[in-house]
């Protein structure tokens, strides 16, 4: 079975190619069928790989490598195109293809209308599926590649898919700009990735002539102390790459703008899968990070601060998708916090649960958006729960899971992270806990503002209605996931082997020890987080449903912060003023002064002088030929002179 693992890539590749060449002629229905079937087949293959890996002996770390072909060979730089099938990559492949398939299903209906609510023509409909199939392909290469160059291929490939999909409504300048911004900001991260790979090859890869994970990690043993200390630099560069792809401080600025893409794209790429690539990459590279404690602290702190910052911005956003975007940045921050404190399993666990509930939230938001003809401002909503009861329930489950409502999926995974942080540093724990309070509040602010109360825009409300089955039904799968996925990772303290996630991933993270707490400590932290989540929900309830006085005065006491948050801490403006504009000014200076004034000034001057001389030497000829003659003449004289004087 595992020998056919390449099929998992083949299906989405075939789907993308079919729709590239024949999509226009296939028509809406067939284009969607091909694209969906491709991802479904890929998902079934991922399930097969899961069982294949399970059957592998634990002694070999449950790892299987499938070489495909020799990719790049120059001297000792030998890169293979090969797949790595192990517990971690199968989890990722299952999430990517599983959630990916649900989103494809939803998109088959959603994408029939364009951004102005007009029917979308078959060519562009098919093109959408080309892009998303291509995305699935690249994401699978990213998680299944066995070496850093294959990772890089997937890494930039998903970036391209993201660029194309953010700019899918390219006639809107905001969408076009957002796509470009996403690609360029990610390139800044990729700068780190590229250099890190070169450095890794230089330090650990030359011996084996390889950049395969197992060769690099094997070379860590017995490496010189200098090489080990250089790992701090390498891992910081990898961290830079991760902050780009996973939208963390300092490179998070592209993700909120990425909401310009069609909503299924926001759900798939900018919430459930692609943006988790940074978390996956750090988890995959954990042997390197474990040896660089300084970087590990940086990862944890970047995660914690990003979580806090993004959650605080989410408090005041009024655009439903932007709330979810900042929420995604914040939740990714939790995952960084997890891997930063060495709780890799918790990080991957949260990645899985988050994929369910965030995809659910986005798709439900997409249903709302369609029902309101593109309106996303929660100030104009209200009362939708009666109009769209099914969507309401779906969104509610997603929000509750996000808010850490007890026993839902997000509760378990966030708690495992907070527990890891608590063991590591009480301060990190407190930041995480406070962020959890904000999270519960903003999640339910969205619920109450959109679905409860009286409609604030009668016209919109009158036209709102439940969306077709094609968009409603697939979400129930995500609802089940959001409700139950948490039981994959019950705390170890509850009993041996009760944490399925831990047991499954153990062969990958062997040798990383997360201190286990006593049952009492675990339960105590549970109670604290449950309370914090419920308090957050209650405050939102008091403020937006009951509209009680104390909640209003609470909000007023934070009024001075309002402009800071509404302007998102002015980060975009700062980057523009400090980096982008100075570079553009430098470019204008180079072009105008450097090229046109200095260099061409000299060149034209010399040209005029020689033309004059040339004209003098041979009046009958035009300037350039005389110059040629002159050069040959000077050359001949020089040779003669040389031999007379030297020779």
């Amino acid at each position, binding site marked *: 079975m595992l020998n056919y693992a390449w099929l998992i890539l083949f299906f989405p590749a075939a789907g993308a190619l079919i729709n590239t060449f024949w999509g226009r002629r296939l028509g809406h229905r067939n284009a969607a069928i091909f694209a969906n079937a491709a991802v479904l087949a890929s998902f079934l293959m991922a399930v097969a790989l899961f069982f294949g890996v399970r059957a592998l002996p634990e002694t070999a770390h449950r790892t299987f490598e499938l070489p495909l072909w020799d990719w790049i060979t120059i*001297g000792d730089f030998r890169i293979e195109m090969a797949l790595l099938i192990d517990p971690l990559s199968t989890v990722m492949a299952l999430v990517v293809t599983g959630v990916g398939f649900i989103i494809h299903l939803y998109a088959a209906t959603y994408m029939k209308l364009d951004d102005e609510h007009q029917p979308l023509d078959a060519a562009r409909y098919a093109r959408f599926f080309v892009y998303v199939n291509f995305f699935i392909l690249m994401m699978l290469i990213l998680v299944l590649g066995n070496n850093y160059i294959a990772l890089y291929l997937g890494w930039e*490939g998903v970036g391209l898919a993201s660029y194309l999909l953010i700019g899918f409504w390219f006639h809107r300048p905001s969408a076009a700009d957002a796509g470009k911004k996403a690609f360029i900001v990610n390139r800044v991260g990729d700068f780190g990735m590229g250099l890190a790979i070169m450095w890794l090859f230089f330090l650990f890869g030359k011996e084996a002539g390889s950049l395969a994970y197992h060769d690099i990690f094997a070379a860590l043993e017995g490496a010189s102390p200098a090489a080990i200390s250089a790992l701090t630099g390498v891992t910081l560069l990898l961290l830079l790459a991760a902050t780009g792809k996973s939208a963390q401080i300092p490179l998070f600025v592209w993700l909120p703008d990425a909401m310009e893409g069609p909503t299924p794209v926001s759900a798939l790429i900018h919430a459930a899968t692609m943006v988790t690539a940074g978390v996956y990459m750090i988890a995959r590279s954990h042997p390197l990070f474990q040896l660089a404690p300084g970087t590990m602290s940086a990862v944890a702190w970047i995660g914690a601060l990003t979580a806090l910052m993004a959650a605080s911005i989410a408090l005041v956003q009024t655009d439903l998708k932007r709330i979810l975007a900042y929420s995604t940045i914040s939740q990714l921050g939790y995952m960084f916090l997890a891997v930063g404190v060495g709780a890799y399993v918790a990080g991957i666990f949260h990645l899985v649960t988050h994929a369910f509930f965030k995809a659910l939230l986005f798709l439900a938001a997409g249903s709302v958006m369609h029902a309101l003809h593109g309106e996303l401002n929660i100030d104009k909503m209200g009362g939708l729960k009666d109009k769209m009861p099914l969507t309401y329930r779906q969104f509610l489950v997603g929000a509750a899971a996000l808010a850490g409502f007890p026993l839902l999926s997000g509760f378990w995974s966030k708690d495992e992270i907070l527990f890891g942080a608590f063991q590591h540093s009480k301060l990190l724990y407190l930041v995480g806990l406070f962020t959890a309070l904000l999270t519960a509040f903003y999640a339910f602010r969205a619920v109450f503002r959109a679905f409860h109360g009286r409609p604030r825009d009668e016209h919109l409300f009158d036209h709102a209605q439940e969306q077709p089955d094609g968009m409603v039904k697939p979400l129930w799968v995500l609802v089940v996931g959001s409700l139950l996925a948490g039981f994959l990772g019950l705390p170890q303290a509850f009993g041996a082997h009760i944490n399925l996630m831990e047991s499954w991933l153990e062969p990958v993270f062997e040798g990383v020890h997360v201190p286990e707490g006593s049952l009492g400590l675990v339960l105590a932290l549970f109670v604290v987080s449950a309370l914090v989540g419920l308090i957050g929900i209650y405050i939102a309830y008091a403020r937006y449903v009951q509209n009680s006085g104390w909640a209003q005065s609470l909000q007023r006491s934070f009024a001075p912060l309002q402009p800071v948050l509404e302007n998102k801490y002015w980060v975009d403006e700062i980057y523009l003023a400090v980096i982008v504009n100075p570079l553009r000014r430098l470019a204008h200076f180079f072009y105008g002064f450097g090229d046109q004034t200095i260099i061409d000034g000299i060149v034209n001057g010399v040209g005029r002088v020689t033309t004059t001389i040339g004209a003098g030497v041979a009046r009958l000829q035009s300037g350039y030929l005389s110059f040629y003659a002159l050069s040959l003449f000077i050359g001949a004289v020089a040779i003669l002179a040389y031999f007379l004087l030297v020779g």
Partner: protein
Amino acid sequence: MDNSGSILLSLIIWIPFLGALILLFLHSDRRLKQVALGTTLVDFLVSLLLLVRWQPTGEMQFQEFFAWVPRFGINYHLGVDGISLFLVLLTTLLGPIVILFSWNNIRENLKAYLVLMLAQQAAMLGVFLALDLVLFFVFWEFTLIPMYFLIGRWGGRNRIYAALKFFLYTMAGSALMLVVIFLLYFRAGSFDWLELRQASLDPGLQTIAFLAFALAFAIKVPLFPFHTWLPDAHVQAPTAGSVILAGVLLKMGTYGYLRFCLPLFPDATHRFVPWIAGLAIIGIIYGALVALVQKDVKSLVAYSSIAHLGFVMLGVASLNQQGLSGAVLQSINHGLSTGALFLMVGMIYDRRHTRLLSEFGGLWKQIPVFSAFFVVVVMASVGLPGLNGFIGEFTILVGAFQANRLWAVLGTLGVILAAWYLLTAVRGMLHGPLDNPENQKLTDLSRREIWVLAPLVILFFLIGLFPNLFFDKINPSVDLLIRDVQGPALALLLP
């Protein structure tokens, strides 16, 4: 060796010349085009025989030798190795492509145009295949003449200035080279590359010779600050001329370093290599930044060439396997992807008679096939993994990292900037609202235009996914080159 005694290389060089001669006797436009296209296609097919009969060695093969001017030891000596092989194939591939491109858009003096194109091709092939310095120089100089007329006759508004600048700049470089070629003959007794490679020249001579050659090649590449002829020439040249300029002519410069400067003057190479790397890096960043603020998309592409060629020269300067093999491949990549960019800019120019970014916007809605091609070409140029540009760029940077970490860091900055300026072009042309009425009348790519682009795009993927098809042939020659360059330096380390 099996393939010695073959006349394949002569055929490759002289078929286009022969075709040009035949054209002189034809009159109907249609017949002229057919013969020109047929000639270049035959030349391409003949050049593919090189692959068929290739020997897995790094040495010169398919050598041809006969005395030309025996009195002065000037010989007609041809040969090809892994460093020149793909440059030859690139040249013969671009030949039919640019003729097919020019099918309908040359309206005046078609015969002269086609004759010059074929002559140009023959001369460039001669440059890549000559192993005798005089023969090389003759071909080298000859490449100037057709291009001078192509720019000056069929070029844009400012064509006379551009043509003269192109001519004078490159002449200035090659004049010194000619002097040094004679100097080498008098000091080392030969014009022959194979013999000069064996001779160990004294360091003083090496320095003079290196500098003279390096100047000629630096202008051709072009390295900063010798680059200002390039934007003018590229922008003013007719599309086919720009494609040949960027695709092949610039590679004569990088090829010159690899063929002559490095193996013949190794001591001087070691001495000057930091300077070359420095100029290469300045070129990468300077070229990219200047490209960023261009209003004319053709000059944007022209400046991007300076940045891309900077990468090639950075690979040359790293003097190790990855850097050098990467440089050889990247010069091919640049020819393919920048060639394709110029072709596409030409296609849009033929329709709209403007190239200003501000005139466009929203084209994706009107001409989706063009747009899809354009994005693929841009991504190849951006260096997206899976396509050709990445393989060249990344291996060059791996090489540079081993030579000097700082070089790699600065070079990698160029990778960010490349995305910036190229996506600015995409944003300006394809994205945004389609609000200019002129653009609402545009027609999408014709079947002929798709045929022009398809071979290039297929090669993007072929090189990106299976670069070893190319490295297999490049690497052995690069290994020999490294032996030539490192020889004296290693000898110093011996007791």
